[in-house]
């Protein structure tokens, strides 16, 4: 392997946890590890996680400007000429990596859960068919681009080293769209796909009011992202953007608490890789219990407020 480039995302200069996660993983794959940073962030600090070199493209990438991200990353890829390009499975990467793959006539694997290099080629493990199967995808073309589900790998601590930083010039050529309004989330802004704790409610919540007073209250007490099953979002208890499952977001937190969710395949697809799953459901035969680390067979309206209370006390 001659080189791995990692897109390190940041929010107003604070690197996402996926930056250390992916740099740490890249270091185990062999070859030189470089980082790509878009906009203003303390790029040199990425050396602490194993980036030998950081390539920075200046510009205005917030709110999300897919055309600018594509052109800036394309310039960095042209300069670095990596074998492999990694990014977290975020909206930004999902919106731009396929364009880059087409531009460089490379190969791409999306939403991967594991990575290895075999005979000089990137092999990505990824869930497919709604998480009902997993498959090894070998990327036969170069560059090999992959987006990785957050929380797939350990996150190393910084060793304090500093990386060499190079500014990369880029030119806007891709036709884009203009952001005219940003609609704030109801969830208090905890990013579901990268959250370390997620609580989710289902149809059994019965109303948007209950969803707010029961599930969002638990989420707030735990510092967790709040999601919902498709049944709950279709019923209007929570926003479509909060849906977890095959037709919504995929999450992989350390702790996932499902309340009043039966555990349809469609939902399991979005959360089955969570480390610890807690199921709270009145129905002892609910399929979710077959996937739960811990189960409580009871009415969520009794258990969830009691849990919220315990978490509040614990703070």
């Amino acid at each position, binding site marked *: 392997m001659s080189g791995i480039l990692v897109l390190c995302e940041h929010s107003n200069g604070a690197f996402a946890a996926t930056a250390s996660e992916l740099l740490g993983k890249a270091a185990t794959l062999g070859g030189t590890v470089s980082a790509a940073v878009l906009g203003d962030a303390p790029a040199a600090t990425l050396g602490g996680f194993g980036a030998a070199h950081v390539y920075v493209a200046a510009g205005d990438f917030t709110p999300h400007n897919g*055309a600018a991200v594509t052109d800036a990353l394309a310039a960095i890829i042209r300069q670095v000429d990596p074998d492999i390009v990694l990014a977290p499975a975020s*909206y930004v990467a999902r*919106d731009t990596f*396929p*364009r880059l*793959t*087409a*531009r460089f*006539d*490379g190969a*791409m694997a*999306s939403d991967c859960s594991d990575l290895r290099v075999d005979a000089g080629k990137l092999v990505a493990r990824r*869930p*497919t*068919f*709604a*998480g009902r*199967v*997993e498959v*090894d*995808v*070998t*990327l*036969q*073309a170069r560059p090999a681009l992959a987006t990785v589900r957050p929380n797939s790998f350990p996150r190393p601590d910084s060793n304090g080293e500093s990386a060499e930083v190079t500014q990369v010039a880029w030119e806007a050529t*891709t*036709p*884009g*769209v*203009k*952001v*005219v*309004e*940003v*609609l704030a989330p109801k969830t208090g*802004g905890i990013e579901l*796909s*990268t959250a370390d704790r997620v609580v989710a409610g289902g149809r059994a919540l019965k109303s948007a009011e209950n969803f707010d007073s029961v599930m969002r209250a638990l989420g707030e007490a735990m510092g967790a992202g709040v999601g919902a099953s498709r049944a709950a979002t279709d019923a209007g208890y929570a*926003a*479509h*953007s*909060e*849906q977890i499952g*095959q*037709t*919504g977001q995929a999450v992989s937190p350390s*702790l996932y608490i499902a309340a009043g969710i039966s555990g349809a*395949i469609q939902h399991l697809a979005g959360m089955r890789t969570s480390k*610890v*799953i807690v199921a709270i459901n009145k129905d002892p035969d609910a399929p979710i219990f077959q*996937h*739960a*680390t*811990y189960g*409580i067979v009871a009415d969520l309206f*009794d*258990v969830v407020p*009691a*849990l919220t209370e*315990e978490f509040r006390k614990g703070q």
Partner: protein
Amino acid sequence: MKIGVCAKVTVDADARIKVNPQGTGIALDGVKLGISDYDEYAVEESIRIKEAHGGEIVSFTVGATSDDKLLRGGVLALGVDRSVLITESPADPLGVATLLAASVRKEEVEVVLTGKSTIDEQNFQVGTMLAELLGWAHVTQVTALTFEGNAFTATRNMDAGVQQVVTGTLPAVISCEDGLNTVRYAKLPAIMKAKKKPMDKVTAADLGADAGDARLSQANMAPPAARPAGRIIEGDAATAARELIRLLRDEAKVL
């Protein structure tokens, strides 16, 4: 407006699936197929755009084994005017996008609607690659869409529950998200009429296109490892809540 819409024939979301003996994919014999769920939103949206603004809708499907009947019943009977079936099965999304781009250019559509991903492979790649190959703008994961002349306004779902409203001008590729619309079902007279609607079957050679060598190969497909059996926590709500927190802290060590 001349509207293009992508419709992939996939394994039905509720179908029982089995890995093929080679471990490279799902065995397709006897499995229930359907139009990919997100592509159904795209088809519905194309019909709504035509209803509001007039025009013609052409659907694009890539797949050597794609079923004519499914395309007639699930696409043409709903209101799509014409279907183009590209009878090839490229091994990767960029190959699919390459064939689609050639066909879209030929048809001279102004906008292409796609699902945000297909429900089988869930790559989230083809629509965006298609935009790149065409040199068009794209918007992904769209939950609201309006047109005024050749200008459009779209709402897209981002991470963390954030949505953005964006504006752009055609041509563009728009990928459709759950919540964009509620799909209609075909009525019997429309199903009968759809039998006579044009369906063009074309090959890569007909399009003067080449999907290229396989950029991806698959192996070791298997169901995910079963989770170890869980434990049911007994007791009244307050007791169970306390016990759960103890287990999460001391046993699972996630608090």
